C-alpha cells in the first residue's frame, strides 16, 4: 500500500469514527421543577455523562409555573424535554394523551423490575390505569407532605411550663391533628426572645396547587375519600362526608388562628421563609426540602426536628414526588432510555439519596442504615406507608383548579360553609367527569 492509499484509508477511518461518535453522543434535556433536589440531580448526572458520552442539559421551572409550562410543552408536542420528571398527577394525561413513552418493554429488556421500588411510589408515579402493570415512568423522587418544628423552642423550660399551664399537657411533637392545632395556637403571637412569633406556616396558595396540597393533609387523616367505590366516580357522601367537613373546618381554624398575618397565598417558598426567619414554631412542607432545612446554619441542626403529618381518625399524608418519563415527542428516545437505565441502578439510587434526592428503591429504603442516615429518614418511611394522592385522571388540571377555587373561597375568603364548599366541589367534579363521558 503506498503512502497516498494509506493516508486515504486513515482519513476515511478517522471520519467514520468521528461520525460514529457524533451519532451516539446526544444532547439530552431533562425537565423538572427548580428546587433543591434538582440541583442534586445535576451533580449526580455528571456520572452519567462520563459513562455514556451524552451531554445533559437541564430545564428547571419554578414550582408555581412548573405545571403550566410543562403541560403546555407536552400538549403542543414540544421537543424541549427528552426526559421529564413530571408530577404524579400528570401520569393519566401523560399516558392517555400519548405524551409519555410506555416503558414495559424497555423494563423487561433491561431487567428493571418495578418490584425493586416501594409499592406506593410505583402505584402513584408509574402506573396508568392506576395499579395496573402499565408503566409510564420510573419512580424518581419519593415525597410526601410533612412537618418540621423549632426543637429549641419546644425544649425550653419556660415555654414547656407555659404550655403545661395553658393546656395541662406536655409540649412535644403532636400526635394528632387537633394537638397540632393546639400547639400552633399556643405559639400564635407569643413573644420569644423579644420577638413575636406565630403558630404554623401552612399552604394557602391559590394559583397552582398549594391550598389543595395543604388541605388534603388535613382531609386524609380524617379519612377523606374521593369516591365511595374506587373507579365509579360516586363522590356524593365521600367528598362531602361529615369527616371531610370537619377536616375542612379544622384547616380553616388552623389558618385563621395560628398562621402569620398576610399568609393568604403561601406555598413552599413562603413556608421555608417563615420558618428560616424564625417567624413560626412549626411549618408544613415536602420532605424534599428537609435536607436543606437541616443544613440551614440559623434554624437547622439542633434547632430543628421533623414529624410525619399527624393522624386524626386514620394516618394519612399527602403524596408528593415524581416519576421520570421519556417524552414521546423526543427524537432522542434511545439515549433517554439509557439515562433511565442508569438511574435505576441501585448504586446510583444510593448515591441519589446521599446527595439529597429521595430514592424510592427498596435497596436504599430497606437498608439497615437508612433510618439513621438522616433525622427525617425514619419519618419519610412512615409517611410513605400512608400516602394518598389527588386525582390522577387526564383531566386532573380541571379537577385541581376546581378544588383550589372552592377551598380558597371557603378557607381564605371566608365564603359559605365547609359543607357548601365540598358540595360545590362535587358539582364541579361531576361536570368534568360528565364532559369526559365517565359519568
Amino acid at each position, binding site marked *: 500500500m503506498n503512502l497516498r492509499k494509506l493516508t486515504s484509508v486513515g482519513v476515511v477511518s478517522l471520519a467514520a469514527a468521528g461520525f460514529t461518535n457524533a451519532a451516539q453522543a446526544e444532547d439530552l434535556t431533562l425537565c423538572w421543577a427548580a428546587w433543591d433536589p434538582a440541583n442534586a440531580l445535576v451533580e449526580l448526572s455528571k456520572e452519567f455523562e462520563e459513562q455514556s458520552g451524552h451531554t445533559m442539559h437541564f430545564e428547571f421551572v419554578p414550582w408555581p409555573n412548573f405545571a*403550566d409550562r410543562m403541560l403546555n410543552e407536552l400538549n403542543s408536542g414540544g421537543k424541549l424535554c427528552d426526559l421529564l420528571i413530571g408530577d404524579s398527577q400528570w401520569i393519566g394525561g401523560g399516558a392517555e394523551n*400519548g405524551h409519555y413513552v410506555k416503558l414495559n418493554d424497555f423494563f423487561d429488556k433491561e431487567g428493571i423490575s418495578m418490584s425493586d421500588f416501594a409499592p406506593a411510589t410505583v402505584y402513584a408515579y408509574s402506573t396508568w390505569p392506576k395499579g395496573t402493570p402499565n408503566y409510564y415512568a420510573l419512580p424518581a423522587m419519593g415525597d410526601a407532605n410533612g412537618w418540621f418544628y423549632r426543637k429549641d423552642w419546644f425544649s425550653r423550660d419556660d415555654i414547656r411550663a407555659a404550655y403545661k399551664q395553658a393546656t395541662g399537657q406536655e409540649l412535644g411533637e403532636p400526635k394528632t391533628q387537633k394537638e397540632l392545632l393546639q400547639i400552633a395556637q399556643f405559639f400564635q403571637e407569643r413573644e420569644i426572645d423579644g420577638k413575636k412569633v406565630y403558630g404554623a406556616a401552612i399552604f394557602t396558595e*391559590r394559583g397552582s396547587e398549594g391550598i389543595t396540597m395543604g388541605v388534603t393533609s388535613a382531609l386524609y387523616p380524617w379519612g377523606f375519600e374521593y369516591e365511595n367505590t374506587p373507579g365509579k366516580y360516586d363522590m356524593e357522601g365521600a367528598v362531602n362526608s361529615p369527616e371531610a367537613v370537619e377536616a375542612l373546618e379544622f384547616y380553616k381554624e388552623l389558618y385563621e388562628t395560628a398562621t402569620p398575618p398576610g399568609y393568604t397565598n403561601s406555598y413552599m417558598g413562603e413556608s421555608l421563609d417563615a420558618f428560616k426567619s424564625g417567624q413560626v414554631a412549626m411549618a408544613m412542607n415536602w420532605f424534599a426540602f428537609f435536607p436543606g432545612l437541616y443544613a440551614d446554619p440559623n434554624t437547622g441542626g439542633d434547632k430543628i426536628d421533623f414529624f410525619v403529618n399527624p393522624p386524626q381518625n386514620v394516618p394519612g399524608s399527602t403524596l408528593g414526588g415524581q416519576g421520570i418519563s421519556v417524552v414521546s415527542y423526543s427524537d432522542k428516545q434511545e439515549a433517554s432510555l439509557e439515562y433511565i437505565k442508569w438511574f435505576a441502578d441501585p448504586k446510583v439510587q444510593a448515591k441519589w439519596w446521599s446527595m439529597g434526592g429521595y430514592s424510592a428503591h427498596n435497596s436504599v429504603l430497606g437498608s439497615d442504615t437508612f433510618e439513621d442516615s438522616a433525622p427525617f429518614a425514619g419519618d419519610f418511611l412512615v409517611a410513605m406507608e400512608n400516602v394518598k394522592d389527588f386525582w390522577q385522571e387526564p383531566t386532573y*388540571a380541571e379537577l385541581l383548579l376546581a378544588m383550589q377555587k372552592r377551598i*380558597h373561597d371557603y378557607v*381564605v375568603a371566608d365564603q359559605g360553609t365547609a359543607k357548601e364548599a365540598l358540595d360545590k366541589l362535587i358539582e364541579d367534579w361531576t361536570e368534568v367527569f360528565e364532559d369526559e363521558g365517565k359519568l
Partner: protein
Amino acid sequence: MIEKPLNRLAQATPTPIARRVKGLSDRAIAWIFVGPTIFLLLVINIFPLIWTINLSFTNFKANRIGREIEYIGLRNYERILGDSDIWLSMQATAHFLFWTLFLQVIIGFTLAWLINRKFRGNDLWTTIIVLPMMLSPAVVGNFWTFLYQPQIGLFNYVVAFFTGADPSSFEMLGSVNLAPWAIVIVDTWMWTPFVMLICLAGLRSIPNYIYEAAEVDRASKLRQFFTITIPMVLPFLMLAILFRGIENFKMFDLVVQLTGGGPGSTTELASINLKREAFEKWRTGYSSAFAIILFVTVFGLASIYVKALNKVKER
C-alpha cells in the same frame, strides 16, 4: 432642492423594473402596497377570530387532540351566561374598571392641571410622575406585594402612621374587602401618569388667546375652567378613558402578580378566569365562547364610546 434626490432615485431605478411598474394601474400599485398588510391581518387576526368562533360551538379541548370534536351548538354560551362564577368575575372586572378609570381621570387631570402651570422644576416633576408607567407590570406587581405585606410593608406602616392602627392588623391582599381596592390603588399608581400626559397635551393645545378673550369679558377663573378648559380637554380625556378602559377590561398581569385572583375568587377578573379556563383547564371550546363574549362586550362598548367621542369632537 427637493426634486434633485427624487430625480436621482428615478434614474437609479433599474430600467426593467421601471418598465414593469410603468405598466401597472394605480389600483394595482395600491394593492401591492396594501396587500402584505391585508394578508398579515387575515392570517394573524381574522383567521384566528373565525377559528375561535368556530371552536366556541364545540367541546374541543386542546390537550385532548385525539378526542372526537362534537358540535354542541350554543351550549358553551348557555353555560357561561348561566354560571354565577362568571358573573362574579364580571362584577370584579366592572368594579376594577369603574374605580380605576374614575380615580385616574380625577387624579390625572388634577396633576396635568398643576403641571401645566409654569413653575421651577416643572420638567423634573413631570419625569418623576411618569416613572411608574415606564415599569413592567410584573415588577410593579411584585414590589407592591412587598409594600402591602402586613408585617414589613411600607404601605401598612404609612396607613398605621396616619390612623394609629396596628400595621399588621389589616391585610390589603388577603382581605376579601380590601383586595379589590388594593389592585385599584396599584393600577391607579401605575397608569395615572398616562392619563395625565394626555390631559397635559389637551391643556397645552388650548390657545392662550381664548383665555385672554375671556379675561377681557371678565369671566371668572372658575367660569373659564368650566367653559373653556374642560370642554377643550374633554376629547383628550375621553381618548384617555377609551385607552385605559380597553386595557383594564383585559387586565391580567398586574393582578395575577398581586393577588393571583384571590383571596378566594375576589379579584379574579374576567381575563384571569379566561386564562384559567383556556390554558390551565384546557376547556378550549368553552373558553373560546367566553373570549367571544368578552370581545363582543368590549368591541360594542368601545364602538358606542367612539361615536360619543366623535360627537364631542365635532362640537
